[in-house]
């Protein structure tokens, strides 16, 4: 292909599809199970000993236990089994990559190559509780201890809820207007329709003892030093607020957009048909954000959506299932191509030049020298996020890091006394909601032991 400036005019506009079509495209990705389906699938569970699914669950939910309770008609008990290990069991039922976690471990795969639909069963059990607003957890006697939670995403809320259960008071500091973190601003809309993220937050706060301070950012409005002196413990769960750049010139061209920003805008849009959408969309990256922005661009009416990744499909962070899902939604995937140049006209991006890549003999990614250009009305950057270090700029003591993230031990303790951390901002994680929830839970239990003088 030749690297020529595009001749067509840039085409970015809202309402590429009718409002009805857009609504249909953003409806539930996996519709919930009917009672009959749930009973039939629950019956397929073998109630394994030391269940492999439970072992594969980052939060260790007693999966055969909750399924048995679905079978016996005890949905409230089933939801309690789920949520007592994972307070965001409702969201995780929607967004967990179950195909590489519990459902991959299901012994039914060996028996008949079809696992029990654990994710959908988990949703079945928890939906009933959210619909009826059934309170499931009570607080222990008040301890008088107060813990600062920095960040109101899955890790922070999980930590706050567990601390509240244990009788402590939690104060959540969240820079954004709403709690929920990526559940509210990041996850693809078709995975969590009907404001489930908001309803889940409401359920979590319903236990009491959790004070929320929105619009407060660490490092801007409050310092870690202050928090450490004013609170009995601090939990850092502020996620990855920084976005990686491509490292190319002209990244400021109009139409070159951070995928996470656009997704946040999409998630908050009261009317999705008013969002501007490009006709030809290029997504650079290979993770879940790339998949989400690509599929949602298609759902909003983009004609051509192409994910371009610098390595092969095997190396993409998005699971094979998610990749195939995107492909069935009409997304093209091009691999072994690295972006080399953005070109524009009139201040707007018009094309991206890519260089073919390969692995050299020593295993390093190298360009082949061959290039090609793809025309684009919009280019989404989805090549990862990073910790916004300004958050910790005013800290007198420096928290130890590992691989550009906060280092924690098995109890999610940081190098600073009285400071725990979890979620995407810590090292060694897998950037999943379920793992963030586990971090928050483990940290809360550790904080509890610490406050009671045991650790």
């Amino acid at each position, binding site marked *: 292909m030749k690297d020529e400036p595009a001749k067509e005019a840039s085409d970015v506009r809202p309402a590429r599809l009718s409002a009805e079509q857009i609504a249909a495209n953003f409806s539930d990705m996996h519709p919930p199970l009917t009672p009959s389906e749930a*009973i*039939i699938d*629950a*019956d397929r569970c*073998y*109630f*394994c*000993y*030391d*269940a*492999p699914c439970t072992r594969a669950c980052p939060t260790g939910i007693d999966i055969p236990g909750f399924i048995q309770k679905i*079978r016996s008609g005890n949905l409230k008990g089933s939801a309690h089994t789920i949520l007592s290990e994972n307070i965001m069991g409702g969201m995780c039922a929607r967004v967990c990559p179950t195909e590489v976690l519990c459902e991959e471990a299901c*012994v*039914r795969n*060996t*028996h008949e190559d079809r696992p029990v639909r654990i994710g959908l069963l988990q949703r079945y059990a928890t939906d009933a509780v959210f619909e009826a607003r059934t309170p499931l957890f009570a607080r222990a006697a008040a301890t008088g201890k107060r813990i600062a939670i920095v960040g109101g995403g899955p890790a922070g809320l999980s930590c706050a809820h567990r601390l509240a259960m244990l009788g402590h008071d939690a104060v959540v500091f969240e820079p954004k207007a709403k709690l929920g973190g990526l559940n509210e601003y990041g996850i693809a809309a078709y995975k969590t329709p009907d404001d489930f993220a908001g309803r889940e937050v409401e359920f979590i706060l319903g236990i009491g003892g959790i004070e929320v301070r929105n619009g407060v950012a660490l490092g801007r409005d409050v310092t870690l030093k202050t928090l450490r002196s004013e609170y009995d413990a601090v939990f850092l769960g502020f996620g990855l607020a920084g976005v990686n750049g491509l490292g190319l010139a002209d990244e400021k061209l109009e139409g070159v957009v951070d995928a996470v920003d656009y997704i946040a805008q999409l998630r908050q849009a009261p009317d999705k048909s008013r969002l501007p959408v490009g006709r030809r969309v290029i997504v650079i990256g290979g993770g879940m954000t790339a998949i989400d922005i690509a599929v949602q661009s298609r759902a909003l009416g983009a004609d051509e959506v192409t994910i371009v990744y610098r390595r092969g499909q095997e190396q993409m962070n998005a699971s094979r299932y998610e990749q195939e899902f995107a492909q069935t939604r009409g997304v093209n995937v091009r691999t072994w191509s690295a972006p080399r140049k953005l070109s524009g006209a009139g201040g707007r991006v018009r094309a991206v030049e890519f260089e073919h890549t390969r692995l050299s003999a020593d295993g390093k990614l190298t360009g082949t020298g061959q290039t090609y250009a793809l025309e684009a009305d919009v280019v989404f950057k989805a090549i990862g996020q990073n910790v916004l270090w300004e958050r910790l700029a005013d800290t007198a003591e420096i928290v130890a890091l590992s691989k550009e993230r906060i280092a924690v031990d098995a109890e999610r303790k940081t190098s600073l006394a009285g400071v725990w951390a979890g979620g995407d901002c810590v090292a060694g994680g897998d950037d999943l909601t379920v793992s963030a929830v586990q971090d928050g839970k483990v940290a809360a239990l550790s904080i509890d032991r610490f406050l009671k003088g045991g650790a």
Partner: protein
Amino acid sequence: MADLKTTFLGITSPNPFWLASAPPTDKAYNVNRAFEAGWGGVVWKTLGEDPPIVNVNGPRYGAIHSNDRRVIGFNNIELITDRPLATNLAEIRQVKRDWPDRALIVSVMLPMNEQSWAKYVPMIEDTGADGLELNFGCPHGMSERGMGSAVGQVPEYIQQAAAWCKKYARVPVIVKLTPNITNILPAAKAAQDGGADAVSLINTLNSIMRVDYDALTIYPATDGKGSHGGYCGPAVKPIALHMVAEIARHRETAKLPISGIGGITDWRDAVDFLALGASTVQVCTAAMVYGFKIIDDLVDGLNTYLDSKGFASVSQLVRKAVPSVTDWQYLNLNHVDKAWIDQDLCIKCGRCYIACEDTSHQAITATVNGARHFEVIDAECVGCNLCVSVCPVEKCITMRPMTGGVDPRTGRAITREKADWTTHPNNPGRRAT
């Protein structure tokens, strides 16, 4: 293909599968449909005296389901036919005329007085029916009126009523026995002594299905109250097989022909009954749950099975397993089985492990060299068959007899010599060897 044609008390049917006396055989309409579907015979729903009885206008049936809503246990409180006797007799006459090659037996339930038998037996026989089956089994409703299981629970009554019936009947008489007793043999013996030509068993078991969890009443209920009903379906088959085998293996009753009943759903269930001593089998629940079409699998499956075993007819299968049924005291205590898990079939659910670990002999590993791996520990395995029973994969765990060497559990050498409890040193009443 094997010949499924069956002769029972001189009554022939193209196959050994009869529909039991029950709701499916209450009317010509249903019976005609059954014969069209291929059923070999029918036992017409129990006739009684005029005026006919009445049934409740609420639920007659209740079920126990597996979680995928398969019916595994079923109960009913329906009484005998509630249609006028003349209507039934006219229909029986016509059906027999239309289906001369099928067995048509009429079930009958009468009070304990000779006049009733003298009056009704000839009327029923006059229809041309091939035989009579005496309902001494229904445990609900009629038993409160001194009939059904109220007769079947007292051997003297069985003998008396059978004798009355035989006195006025020319066609063969089958006595249908109730399982609501502690020992089936006196009842079977009484039927034989009363002159009955055969027995059929089992009728249904006394049962209450469950409570209504909201109302906290018996379920099902009619206007808030319910009564015990007769229990049947796959869940009762083992009870029926035991009773059939008892009659078949005991000297005094061994020659009494048996029509086997109780939970037969597919051809394998029929093989159970036939091999343990029945010559024909009767089916009700499976037909009520799935319709008459199940006869296709029953006939075809039995045929294929007979061929695979080299049997030319059903009669060659009958009683084949009877010699293998014995008393516990005669079981060979020198025989040693060990469970064996086929690792290629194992799906690693661990149910064998937890069942053995929690409730039996701690004879299965959960991990080997740190990896999830379920394997029998021969030094602990007593060969109890629990793991085989709970394994969700068919034939994954099997019992293997030790044929030589030393049993690692007991340290005793395996011997071919048989030794049972009757001569065991721990038996205070042992016989000298």
